[in-house]
């Protein structure tokens, strides 16, 4: 599973890393560090990834099976 953050849609709301601190963190400006990129999600952190997806009002975050 990969968690992706669309660099054009992410506006630095910060709700993904607040809801899923075990998976995501903020950069110096308040954007999630993987803005415009992706990370591999270990199976045990699947819930955290879902929380991040469900917290983003920009719909900038997506979780895919690849």
């Amino acid at each position: 599973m990969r968690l992706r953050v669309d660099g054009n849609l992410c506006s630095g709301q910060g709700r993904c890393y607040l809801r899923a601190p075990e998976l995501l963190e903020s950069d110096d400006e308040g954007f999630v560090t993987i803005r415009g990129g992706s990370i591999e999600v270990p199976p045990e952190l699947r819930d955290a990834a879902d929380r991040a997806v469900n917290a983003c009002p920009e719909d900038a975050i997506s979780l895919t099976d690849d």
Partner: protein
Amino acid sequence: MSDSKPIDRAEGVCPIIDIDYRIDRPAFETYASLNELREQAPVLYNRTPFNGYWMVTRYDLVKEALQRPDVFNNKLVSALGDPSQHLYLIPQNLDGKAHVAVRHVVNPWFSPLSVKRIEPLARERAIAMIEELAPKGSCNMTNEFAMLYATEMFLAMLGLPVEDGAMMLPLVEEIFHGFFGGDPEDQAKAADEIKQYFDAVIDDRLATPGDLGTDFVTFLLNSNMDDEPFSRENILTLCMTIMLAGLDTTRSALGFIFLHLATHEDDRLTLIDHPERIPDAVEEFVRLYALVIQDGRYVAQDVDFHGCPMRKGDVMWLGLAQANRDPRKFDRPDEFVLDRDSNKHMGFGIGQHRCLGAHLARTELIIVLEEWLARIPEFRLDTTDPLTERGGQLMLKSVPLAWSV
């Protein structure tokens, strides 16, 4: 066609209404009225004030519009202000690259990491203020605690003396009054006075620079925007804007949150028993009680938006409060629900102009709730008179609370 009035183009296309959202109403009536309009239609035309505006009411459409700055620009940020008496704001009124450049400079100052810097002070001040109030057995949340706290935290965040708050608040009130129906000349005068204050701060910091990491004006004087130093005028406008954005909203949020807790014992008891849920509660409060009920925009290019013929220069109301209570998006939208699986609210706006101070606001609200509920867990609303909310940008005028001592 492009010269025609928007109201004429709206005729027969969408409902036309005539409701003034700048005026005071009994508490919660604004939300009720806005909910009703959202269920009436996804887009309406409101003829008040001035030439009126297209009102977008439903979550998906509000989101679509806020994420299309090429179609809806920020030359105007409230559908309720007088377009001919426009008070210029930075970064709100910037678009495109200029906006990105300013945000790039100021975002780090308001990032979660920076907010952490003032967290010990925010907690210390919250505790001191609450402990001073506790033996009194009553307080007016909006006018006493919330106003003072929000002002102190704003000043602390910028590295300015907290004592200056008393002088600033009436000026901020006057500017907001001007946004929503007050005299534009009084507004301009108040804005000038705030700029004079910051003008003196700039002179002082040019003579004696402060700490680059804690003094905002010194930081701006040493920052570049697109390789050019910030002009004095831009620094003044930016400081005034941040003050306007930061003071009123946090104070208003505390008013709605404490009214809710005073009148919903079950929610209050949950947060007393589970303080670890307070961050989620704050997010849900921001959804339920959106104070900035709308983001205004200008139509930047002719567009047919969901069947409505919008033309360049038309005014838009993008209904944040309506989106946050849209039953198409949220179950039980008018209730406080702590356990939402998904809470994609727009309380801090969305798109590239999302609230710069969101991280600071969250931290302040969380700290106040934690420290208040630990010290004054039982409290009630101390009046039977109906409460009033200010129009424009919502704020309860008074929230009297009482508790046993």
